[in-house]
């Protein structure tokens, strides 16, 4: 009998402990993909993680890297300061949709627009998870939450915000992609997207952003399998997957194409 080899196991960067996440929550997948990409890029020792507020505040309990906790929504500002003080390190934020697309809208937009050499992992599950399932800026029309019990109403609450479309339209963004964690194929694609969003920072060409459509079975009041189906059938049609900006494909730099000096020159 020939020897066996491991085809899949948890990357070493992941701290070996059970997560506090609910069954079927996609944060675990997203954490692992980040860990795998950091490992494959050889960045584990050089990574500074900026956590945010929400269920994923405890990311630092699962990834074995230096980390700082940012106030709600402010991770891109904290990451800006951290990167400016440690230019040789890899700095990323990990934020949910309530954190990034509501209270932190100013910080994310301006960090992207400045072309900060940071990378942002944006987990969009259309709900405030940690606080008990309230309406988020990304909550779909008709989706019932604890603060829109009759379903989100376009007339009263407006339409769900599409962040990748916004970030992709900003001058300093070097890479912006929306991916999904609902299927094996999409998970593989998501990993490539994370890698691209990380690479543009390492190449010094601008701001990297990756949105991950994710499930929150607990606050969606359904089981994990149904939650994944909801992503496929309801979220993806409203939040189309794809690359919203890629300056590497355009052969340019996020900043120089807009007539400002590359920060690498300093």
């Amino acid at each position, binding site marked *: *009998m*020939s*020897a*066996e*080899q*491991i*085809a*899949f*196991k*948890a990357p070493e960067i*992941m701290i070996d402990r*059970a*997560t506090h*996440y*609910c*069954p*079927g*929550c*996609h*944060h*675990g*997948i997203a954490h*692992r993909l980040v860990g795998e990409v950091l490992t494959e890029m050889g960045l584990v020792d050089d990574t500074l993680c900026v956590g945010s507020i929400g269920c994923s505040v405890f990311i630092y309990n699962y990834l074995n890297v230096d980390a700082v906790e940012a106030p709600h929504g402010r991770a891109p500002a904290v990451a800006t300061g951290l990167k400016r003080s440690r230019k040789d390190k890899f700095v990323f934020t990990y934020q949910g949709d309530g954190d990034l697309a509501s209270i932190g809208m100013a910080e994310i937009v301006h960090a992207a627009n400045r072309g900060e050499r940071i990378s942002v992992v944006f987990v969009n599950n259309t709900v405030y998870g940690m606080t008990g399932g309230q309406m988020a800026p990304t909550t779909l029309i008709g989706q019932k939450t604890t603060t829109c019990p009759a379903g989100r109403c376009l007339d009263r609450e407006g339409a769900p915000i599409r962040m990748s479309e916004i970030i992709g339209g900003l001058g300093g963004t070097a890479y912006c992609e929306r991916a999904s964690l609902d*299927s*094996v194929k999409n*998970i*593989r694609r998501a990993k490539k997207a994370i890698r691209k969003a990380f690479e543009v920072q390492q190449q010094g060409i601008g701001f990297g952003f990756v949105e991950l459509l994710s499930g929150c*079975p607990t606050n969606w009041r359904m*089981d*994990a*399998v149904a939650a*994944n189906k909801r992503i496929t059938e309801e979220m993806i049609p409203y939040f189309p997957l794809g690359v919203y900006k890629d300056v590497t494909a355009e052969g340019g730099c996020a900043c120089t194409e807009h007539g400002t000096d590359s920060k690498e020159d300093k």
Partner: protein
Amino acid sequence: MARVEFRDERCKGCLLCTTVCPKEIICQSARFNKQGYKVAEVKEDDMDKCTGCASCALICPDLAITVYREKKEGK
């Protein structure tokens, strides 16, 4: 020969792995772990059908699955 190994104490019984197995050999067991989750498993008789594709491990949010594959000759 390939096989998968479930860490019972990490499994939260979400069953996402059961939806992606091309051989449909992953199912919910009758066992509960210490957290009270009914864990996923591959029945011993079905294990030889495992191709080692690792789809289950890729979709598992809890790093509960390790996948082993036979080492190919000449590598």
